[in-house]
């Protein structure tokens, strides 16, 4: 029983990270109909840049903030330089562009940051807290709390603020949004910046637990995508549910089946969703009009 509790704890923690990556996918997908395979790199950059900022002498919160802002800027650059010029390209091209971007960012990180694993201290220490027969790291609580805060904050942003609603409008129908005076270019940049910042924040929160190296981005991207699909592509509620579910499934697979194949859980989920529930948990079915 305490074993199960432990798996559930780690599942929820890693699930919170997946949920944030999935949320990033969702925001960009809603804004531009593009699946951004470079999403995982934002998480890596957030953690990595904080490590180096902190090592350079900046106080941890400042280093984190700088990292998040810098990653947001990189997100905007990605949109402006790689995705907008390819507007209207076939899906194959867009896939190659965003995968290319992810490989490029990874390649640059390899040169700049090296290949080793890095970390910075946890926010409130490393002493495990006993909960319901298992233990949880204080940092895990930060991760979960941070994820929830972001989801709630974004929900408020999208439903209560004018800018947020403009983003939703653009996601729904770009042309119509333009016609009512919304600056869709700005909305696109904002969506990418937001998405990158969320990813970076996830990286900042989770690095004290999982450490960061230049190549963690890819598997995060794939799992985040699996989570987004599980929840229903384009639905933020789905991103949260999908992320947590995927994290739990992974932890349970690692615990009860095989830790070597825990990564396979994400792909089994993807394939399962695609065949039995392509619209995901919260998505809606669409028909093609001829």
């Amino acid at each position: 029983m305490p074993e199960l509790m432990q798996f559930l704890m780690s599942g929820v923690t890693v699930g919170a990270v997946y949920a944030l990556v999935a949320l990033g996918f969702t925001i960009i997908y809603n804004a531009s109909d593009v699946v951004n395979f470079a999403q995982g790199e934002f998480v890596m950059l957030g953690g990595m840049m904080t490590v180096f900022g902190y090592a350079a002498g900046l106080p941890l919160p400042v280093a984190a903030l700088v990292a998040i802002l810098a990653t947001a800027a990189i997100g905007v650059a990605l949109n402006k330089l790689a995705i907008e010029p390819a507007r209207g390209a076939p899906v194959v091209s867009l896939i190659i562009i965003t995968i290319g971007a992810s490989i490029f960012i990874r390649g640059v990180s390899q040169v700049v940051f090296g290949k080793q694993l890095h970390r910075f201290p946890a926010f409130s220490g490393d002493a495990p807290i006993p909960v319901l027969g298992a233990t949880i790291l204080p940092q895990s609580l930060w991760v979960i709390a941070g994820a929830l805060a972001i989801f709630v904050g974004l929900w408020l942003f999208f439903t209560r603020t004018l800018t947020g609603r403009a983003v939703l409008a653009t996601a729904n129908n770009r042309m119509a949004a333009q016609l009512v005076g919304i600056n869709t270019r700005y909305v696109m940049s904002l969506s990418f910046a937001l998405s990158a910042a969320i990813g970076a924040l996830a990286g900042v929160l989770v690095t004290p637990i999982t450490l960061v190296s230049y190549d963690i981005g890819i598997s995060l991207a794939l799992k985040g995508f699996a989570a987004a699909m599980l929840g229903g592509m384009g639905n933020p509620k789905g991103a949260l549910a999908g992320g947590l579910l995927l994290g739990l499934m992974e932890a349970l697979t690692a615990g009860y089946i095989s830790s070597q194949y825990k990564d396979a859980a994400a792909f089994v989920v993807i394939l399962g969703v695609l065949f039995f529930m392509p619209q995901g948990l919260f998505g809606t079915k669409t028909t093609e009009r001829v």
Partner: protein
Amino acid sequence: MRLSTKAVTLLVLSLVIAVAPLFFPSTFYYRVGSLIFINGLAVTGLVILIGYAGQISLGHAGFFGIGAYACALAPAHLGLHPVLAAVLGAVLSGVVAYVVGKPILRLKGYYLAVASLGFGVLVAMVLANEAWLTGGPDGIAVADPGLRALLRGFGVDLSNAQFWYGFCGLVLVLGAWLALNLYHSPTGRALRALHGSEVAARTVGVDVARYKLNAFVISAVYASVAGSLLALQNRLVTPDMAGFMHSIEMVTMTVLGGAASVPGAILGAAILTALPQVLTVFQEYEQLMLGLVMMLVMIFMRQGLLPSLARLLRGRGG
């Protein structure tokens, strides 16, 4: 006598393969050459899937891996001759492609991409984890297929590098011939039709699901044979032959030169294979360069290098 593009392509390809060795300063170039031919073979298969039929697969390295490991495992465990093992690998890949393809080809776009990606990653995972069978992450050795010895019996004595250069070149020309034949054939038209408009293709009687599956299986067999050639040549197989990065490289090569064009894809394979070899000094920058190339080509030369160059030479309006 006007030569068709098919004839020109095959002629140029054969000529280049036959004549290039005259310029080789060292045996190293034979190895690069045969690597180009192996990659070229794999991407020729992808041209059929991506270029003709308009589908996508980010997991085809999985079939490459199956073909490669078949040559390592079948001789050791089943006593098969390595060349027969390659045939077994091709058959196995075809069957797996059929079984996996049937459900996943119902998907489109990003969903198909990720489903195929999942397949490839699962294959690589199994190859890496089941060390008792596959030797784990370090891979296993492959027995000598004894083909060079066979040739020596006929009085032809080639070095290892020379033999594989020629053999792979031959297989590539054969593979290219088959793919080019397909383009202008009824099957090729059906594939290209479903690429152009699935709805209209159905309406003229094309069983879209069946033809997509055909393209998937054929391209899987191409990848498998390429994997077998690499295994027999290098005498070593490792799990990253089936890995995600390899799948991405394969797709990039295909699209780089022009996805619907066999010569274009082979050109793409040549460039992306030769580049890391040329830039060995910049090993660190390999990933960075690959990513950059991928983005730049897709943004500025959407049709791929060959068609874009062709248009440039013909002048706008061609």
